[in-house]
């Protein structure tokens, strides 16, 4: 199956996006910010539509709005963690604006192509071009390395913000940087592999890792490994079984891994 270029592209982008999601996802789950990631991924679509409406590049609009929302969440919330209620209300409004933009675009002649472009941005992992998959891999790798490099301050400011402040860690800045990193991963992977896959690869592998170990580095490694494994397995499954969408297969495997880890947890615990 690797004779086909689209399969190679999917594996290239999928591997690195899974790596980034698994690594950053471990922190997202630890910080209880899965909802923030989810909101960011919905907003990405509005960013692309908005860009189409005012006539700038859809990819630029998508990145700009996602990162802007991450900055707003970080700046407004305490500990650089916005309140879920505020996130929910704000993101419902942004979606409402998206609906308005769709309606405006639908009534203005010549803009239909913009909507079409915005829609094709949210393609399936199997429709990536070679260039897009290299870009996705590079961005994902950069975010992964950034998260790994800042593991210690991130961990300390998550688990014990007071102690972190005392030891001179800029807690707010770390939280803000983390949200921006999450926004970049979200924007890139929403566009490359779809918002659905993103959320699944952030939540399920990290949840599985958290139920296996509470040691940070081991947890990050396990989370990333499960994410990459689910991606490889899911891509192969959906290639073999026609009619099975790749995202459904990948999510299915990741969720199954989580289910097994959570269900066998009582067996593993020492008495």
């Amino acid at each position, binding site marked *: 199956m690797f004779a086909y270029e689209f399969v190679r592209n999917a594996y290239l982008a999928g591997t690195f996006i899974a790596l980034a999601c698994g690594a950053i996802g471990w922190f997202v789950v630890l910080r209880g910010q899965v909802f923030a990631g989810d909101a960011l991924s919905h907003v990405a679509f509005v960013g692309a539509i908005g860009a189409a409406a005012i006539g700038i590049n859809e990819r630029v609009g998508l990145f700009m709005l996602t990162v802007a929302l991450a900055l707003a969440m970080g700046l407004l919330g305490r500990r650089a963690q916005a309140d879920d209620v505020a996130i929910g209300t704000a993101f419902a409004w942004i979606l409402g604006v998206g*609906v308005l933009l769709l309606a405006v675009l639908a009534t203005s002649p010549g803009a239909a192509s913009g909507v079409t472009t915005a829609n094709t941005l949210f393609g399936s992992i199997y429709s990536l071009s070679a260039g897009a998959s290299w870009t996705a891999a590079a961005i994902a790798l950069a975010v992964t390395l950034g998260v790994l490099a800042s593991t210690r301050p991130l961990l300390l400011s998550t688990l014990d913000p007071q102690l972190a402040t005392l030891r001179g860690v800029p807690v707010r800045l770390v939280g803000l940087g983390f949200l921006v990193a999450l926004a970049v991963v979200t924007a890139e992977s929403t566009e490359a592999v779809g918002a659905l896959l993103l959320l699944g690869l952030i939540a399920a592998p990290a949840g599985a890792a958290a139920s296996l170990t509470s040691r940070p580095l081991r947890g990050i490694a396990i989370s990333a490994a499960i994410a990459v494994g689910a991606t490889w397995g899911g891509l192969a499954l959906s290639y073999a079984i026609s009619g099975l969408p790749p995202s*459904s297969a990948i999510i299915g495997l990741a969720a199954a891994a989580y289910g097994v880890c959570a269900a066998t947890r009582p067996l593993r615990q020492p008495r």
Partner: protein
Amino acid sequence: VNPSLSLDLVADFRQLTAFPFMVNALQAATIVAVLAASVGWYAVLRRQIFASHTLSVMAFPGAAGAALIGLPIALGYYLACATAGLAIAGTGRTPRRGYGGETAVIGTVQTVGLAAGFLFLSLNQSILGGPETLLFGTFLGITPSQVLVLLAVAVASLIVLTVVARPLLFATVERDVASASGVPVARLEVLFLLILALAIAATSQITGALLVFALLVAPPACAQQITLRPLPGLALSVVFALLIAWIGLALAYFSIYPVGFYVTTLAFGLYVVVRAGGALKRRGGR
């Protein structure tokens, strides 16, 4: 006749109710606003925002699954939401062992639901009314029988909510004390997620899956900024939701833009005003 807005409110109201579809829409919006704002008051107090969002996107697998096996779409909404509610409840939010395990569970439930939805869709490929309708809702084309079903669901949910209102409040505010004084906290939590699931399934048929929050979260959040007393808070929340729904519908009727935009903008605007007012009051009080 093109509807036109004037300063004469009576004439405006007559225009608004001139067509049966608008009467149905107004009735449905009223029912949904009361239901969502009451259930949402507890959801916001319990900070189950992510769970609410997850339940609201279950509309997609619900509709896709129902279309696949030939059930009524509305039944699919209710079944999928209830299943997801039980899945979230089954994993238990009780022991806060480890950090943030709950959000991982909810996130996983959400993606599994959506992945199932995509699978159903690719197995079926039939018309689903378009993904936009599913996500952003439509007030038009609501039938009187749909309004009746909505009413039945709303009355049933609100009766159950009223019965458990006091113990649920106790279990929400002082979980451990409630548990120690014999309140069946765990069972109440499951029951509440089921009520929440029903309310969201009903709401998302009207507002669309993504805009549920405008009625479910924003009005209670505003009310809780103003007062923390339960009964006035609940009443205020319902009033806010009714205003948002009615004004949103009316604005959409008199203009060419979609109702989802008006409803969410009103909700968000109200929330911003209330938050800003609260901040000013705190500053003035000091």
